[in-house]
């Protein structure tokens, strides 16, 4: 086919996807996209994965994208197809995940007529996407699709919607290859400013109590960026903490790693953030779950903020040095400048700082007590610890996804990641129902890997229909449910803030997850007491098809440590394992939950 040859829009669309390197589409058919499905049917280059709900298509594409670094692609029909996808789009927007979502639309001449399955998709998704397009002319189709991929993956990545009226995908259209010229207006800065780098290094060299605070931007910048972060931290000898989204950007086993920071971060990470004199934020956005009370956030620190998105800088926290650019290139530049700078780092002060940090670390803030006598109830933290230890022993490439809630925080605390792109979680939006479809997307991208969705019994029900997709494609996804019969994080807040009145947080009439698994052609396992835990995990890992492991855990367990909302980092609650703690939650904090 020559570039001047006119072909049906659906064929042009698929050719553009192929030229963008697309191998997999997650989607669900419907009237407006039938011509596209017909074109998919007649080719073999791109694989289509049929989900059971459009929200799951986006989460699956997110899991695919997050675990590969590629753009995830979604195809849904008009109207309800598009509106069902919106939660996934906002999730990808908040967590900066590159997605291209193709939505069907009623034919151009019917737009605005309240036609069957019509929705104002570009209007609805405008604040839900990084950018969106409505293709109105056949000659724009190929260019817009290429541009959508460029926008999705460039700068701070995000979701892009391309709305495709049915006549556009039926009528002949010309093809155009990906543009070789720069985009007319959207050209994010990736190379850091040398002066900003020099100012940052000057601050780092003088630092007596430094900390490196890394976020999801390091993961988005690719594995080289994570490697550069590791080199920089080891060479400077600085302590390093990461956000929820940044887990895996720095090896958890490294002595410089203080664990995750923020609301359920470690004692040592949060106190180091509070007490530091120079903070290097790389690829994180001073989220409210990280900063706690803003006017008490790291009061004595001079702050360096490196981010690809200029609008993230000085948004929540004023900083002293701003570096705009790609995290990997910034880290390389910082390391080069660190080596070139003649000033001697404050080694003695740094050693004293580490002694302080080790004293905080000695508090062992993630400690829990697991009774070992047969019949003892399983602590949720222990279930994650054993899952981690036994998967580590199994030695397979392992990817973890989560739903949202207590289990997610326990997973972030107790599962340890050495490499980037192995941890998929809904950070910004906090979308229950994310983990199962995300695991599906990860497994599609990594068929041989061990993919585990660490779930709660409430979250898993939000996209449980995807067990059917998992069965159809024989995906050996493992679902590890910490079942406490409560929306645990809701219950925890109700206990702390609302007088223990557990309004609607108890999940009555739960399904029998073992039989549920079996009905979806998967293996169902259950652990009720401590002696059943390890055998269930062993069996789950040894099973080469999908498994739901229902782990009954202590219903009363809360997630600690915890910075109550509206509190400062040095006002942490350490939980029942530690004495002398008091919840200092203010009315102001109540609003911030």
């Amino acid at each position, binding site marked *: 086919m020559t570039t001047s040859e006119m072909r049906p829009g659906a064929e042009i669309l698929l050719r553009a996807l192929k030229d963008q390197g697309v191998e997999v589409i997650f989607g669900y058919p419907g009237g407006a996209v039938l011509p596209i499905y017909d074109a998919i049917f007649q080719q073999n280059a791109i694989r289509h994965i049929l989900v059971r709900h459009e929200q799951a298509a986006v989460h699956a594409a997110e899991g695919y994208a997050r675990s590969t670094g590629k753009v995830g692609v979604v195809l849904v029909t008009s109207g309800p197809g598009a509106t069902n996808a919106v939660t996934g789009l906002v999730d990808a927007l908040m967590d900066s995940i590159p997605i291209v979502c193709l939505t069907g639309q009623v034919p151009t001449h019917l737009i605005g007529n309240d036609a069957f399955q019509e929705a104002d998709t570009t209007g609805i998704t405008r604040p839900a996407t990084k950018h969106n397009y409505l293709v109105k002319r056949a000659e724009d189709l190929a260019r817009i699709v290429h541009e959508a991929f460029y926008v999705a993956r460039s700068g701070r990545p995000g979701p892009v919607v391309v709305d495709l009226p049915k006549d556009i995908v039926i009528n002949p259209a010309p093809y155009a290859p990906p543009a070789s010229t720069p985009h007319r207006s959207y050209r994010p800065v990736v190379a850091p400013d040398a002066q900003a780098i020099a100012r940052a290094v000057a601050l780092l060299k003088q630092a007596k109590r430094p900390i490196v605070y890394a976020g999801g931007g390091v993961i988005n910048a690719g594995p080289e960026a994570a490697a550069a972060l590791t080199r920089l931290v080891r060479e400077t000898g600085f302590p390093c903490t990461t956000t929820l989204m940044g887990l895996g950007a720095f090896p958890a086993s490294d002595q410089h790693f203080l664990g995750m920071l923020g609301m359920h971060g470690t004692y040592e990470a949060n106190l180091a953030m509070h007490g530091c004199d120079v903070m290097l934020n790389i690829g994180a956005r001073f989220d409210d779950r990280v900063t706690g009370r803003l006017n008490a956030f790291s009061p004595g620190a001079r702050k360096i903020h490196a981010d690809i998105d*200029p609008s993230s*800088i000085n948004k929540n926290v004023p900083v002293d040095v701003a570096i705009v650019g790609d995290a990997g290139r910034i880290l390389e530049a910082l390391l080069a400048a660190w080596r070139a700078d003649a000033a001697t780092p404050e080694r003695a002060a740094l050693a004293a700082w580490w002694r302080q940090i080790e004293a905080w670390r000695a508090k062992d803030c993630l400690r829990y007590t697991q009774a070992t006598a047969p019949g003892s109830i399983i602590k949720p933290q222990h279930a994650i610890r054993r899952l981690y230890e036994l998967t580590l022993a199994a030695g397979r490439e392992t990817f973890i996804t989560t739903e949202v809630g207590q289990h997610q925080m326990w997973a972030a605390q107790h599962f340890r990641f050495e490499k980037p792109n192995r941890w998929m979680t809904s950070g910004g939006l906090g979308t229950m129902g994310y983990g199962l479809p995300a695991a599906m997307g990860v497994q599609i991208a990594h068929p041989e890997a061990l993919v585990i969705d660490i779930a709660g019994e409430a979250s898993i029900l939000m996209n449980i229909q995807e067990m059917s997709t998992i069965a159809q494609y024989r995906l050996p996804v493992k679902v590890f449910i910490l079942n406490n019969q409560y929306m645990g994080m809701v219950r925890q807040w109700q206990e702390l803030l609302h007088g223990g009145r557990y309004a609607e947080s108890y999940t009555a009439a739960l399904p029998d997850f073992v039989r549920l698994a079996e009905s979806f052609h998967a293996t169902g396992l259950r652990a009720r007491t401590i002696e059943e835990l390890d055998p269930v995990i062993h069996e789950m890992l040894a099973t080469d098809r999908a498994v739901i492991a229902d782990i009954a855990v202590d219903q009363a367990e809360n997630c600690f440590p915890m910075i109550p909302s509206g509190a400062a980092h040095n006002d942490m609650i350490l939980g029942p394992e530690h004495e002398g703690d008091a919840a200092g939650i203010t009315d102001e904090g109540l609003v911030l939950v």
Partner: protein
Amino acid sequence: MAGNGAFRTATISVLVDNESGVLARVIGLFSGRGYNIDSLTVAPVEDGRGRSRINVVTSGTEMVIEQIKAQLDRLVPVHRVADLTQEGPHLAREMALIKILCTGEQRAEALRLADAFRARVVDATTASFVFEMTGNPDKLDAFLDLMRPLGLAEVSRTGVAAIARGARVI
């Protein structure tokens, strides 16, 4: 939104691709993030590249205004964001059509004030005037204050068009 400190007004000009939805993106950004819009104008600018210029007058702390500019700048169809208030002296002009309903002595007084403010009479009946007036928004406000006791009945304002003084272009 964080950012203590004094409020200031900013007149921001934004060059955008003249495509459908671009105004909705800009307005949605302001409403979605809780920023103020004091005035907003948009029209194609004939530079042969299919661009429009949006002039927006907003107010906030310095931190908020920096945020507004950064947020505008990352919209895909945005080519340039210029804070005219910050970048140097600039001209701001607004046009208003002002309807006065009055009789007798008040008519003469309205005409005298209109003359002093260089407002033109563009329509008149025995019971009404419509004045056309152009100037910076403060001047329009001052004129409207004076017209209020004289039978001010209706106002239609265009919003602010703004441009930098001197040879500087955005």
